[in-house]
């Protein structure tokens, strides 16, 4: 891997990066606004949870790929971060599943 390839790649994006960052930030703000409004809409509980989860995932991905440069970095950085993220997500999911089971309802909330 030579420098020039990386450098030229960077060079091409340099002009647009400033604008891109601003655009992304605006987009994130808009998504956040939509999220807040969504909460008050008369959708079903499941639909709302899904919408919120999806929109925050989209925000999450925009930040890590654009602001945190994962898009332009070596893919290895993405792999590293995703190991942690996926394991954390999996652990959260598993914990919530275990605690959602009938057997796990604490006596104090019965």
């Amino acid at each position, binding site marked *: 891997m030579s420098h020039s390839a990386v450098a030229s790649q960077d060079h091409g994006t340099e002009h647009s990066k400033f604008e891109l960052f601003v655009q992304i930030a605006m987009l994130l703000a808009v998504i956040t606004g939509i999220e807040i409004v969504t909460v008050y809409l008369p959708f079903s509980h499941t639909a709302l949870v899904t919408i919120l989860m999806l929109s925050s995932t989209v925000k999450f991905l925009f930040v890590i790929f654009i602001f945190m440069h994962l898009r332009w970095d070596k893919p290895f950085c993405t792999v590293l971060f995703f190991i942690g993220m996926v394991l954390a997500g999996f652990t959260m999911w598993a914990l919530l599943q275990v605690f959602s089971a009938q*057997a*796990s*309802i*604490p*006596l*104090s909330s*019965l």
Partner: protein
Amino acid sequence: MRLHKFLHNSFTNIRSLGAVASLALLSGCSWQSLLGLDGKQSTFITEGPVARTQLDLFYVTCYVTFAIFVIVASILAYATIKFKARTPAEESAIPPEEGHGNPLIEVGLIAASVFALVIIAVPTLKGIWYTYDVPVEEKANAYEITATGYQWWFKFEYLNEQVPGAGVLTTGNELVVPAGRPIHVNLRSMDVMHSFWIPKLAGKVDMIPNRGNLLWFKADKPGYFWGQCAEFCGDSHALMRFRVIALSPRDFNDWLDQQSKSYRVVASTGSGLGKAQFASLRSFKENEPGVSGDFEVSPLDAWKAKQFPEKNENPELITRGMHLFSEKTCNTCHMIRGYAGAVGVAGPELTHVGSRTTIAGGNLDNNAEQLQRWIHNPGAVKPGNKMWVNGYLLNNIKLTSEDEVALVAFLQSLK
């Protein structure tokens, strides 16, 4: 399913074969006792379907792993001996080029391990569902009990047995159940985590604060079983023991009737306090065993014998003990149904304490000598226990030998 049935049958066959062989070999002497694995809490001797399922599954894991062990170990042993370098030339042999492994062998071995695990997995899954709760077809017949763990004793509540004016029937440290009926136990804890374990009847399930766990077991026939807390719960975790007594339905009903009564009052004869029967206290060494061998020959009979009042009771002593029970503030923690003011719930229920085979959390035989040892210095029997720390020490309770003798007589009379 068919595979599983086949496997199950073959394992049962192997096991019975093994059993027959060992029987023939030892002419009647069980292999458990031969190997010293017939202890009071042996998981090899099962007396109920839950423990039996668990043991069967254990055998399945044993067979599978033993088979793998024989194969792998013999290859390893063979390789170690066969390929040992015997000469200095061999020791410095030029290493060969890096090979590529052998995909066929690797995949084959992985497949074989997966197959071996499937053999274990099938009965495991079946066992998980079977041992979790009382089977549906037996649910109607199940007997419901709530067991609560305390540092360091167990409270048992008989949810179906209402005692007029005193809530549900409650006992401590000795759980009496009907044999042949599934027992559904709700497990609760009032302080820290404990675990409820009667090895011969069922594997353990934890008692966790703010959590409603359950366990079920069934005793095949009447018997007397040892149990113990199996989750570390503080200083005297080792001394948190209990017993389960399974009775025939008739005996059980008799027992329920007896237990539902208020405490037994022994009328004073008015002849004054006689000479104390055992004025001097035998001194016990710290941590000296409180169990005697003669009781164990036939523990169930010993338990039955405890249900009746002793012949040479001293009514005067008992009456004095009865007064001391509230004088020395025992009543603030211990309930004795019918005894005015004895409504405490911090300690075990004592209404019929005299009819139990053990005291102090299953640690001491229930006799006058051991009972006196217990109330003389509870801290020496069960380090850190609440009766000692929050009772004796906090309230500065002092008992003379005479007090102890009288209290012992009173408690022993509570049949």
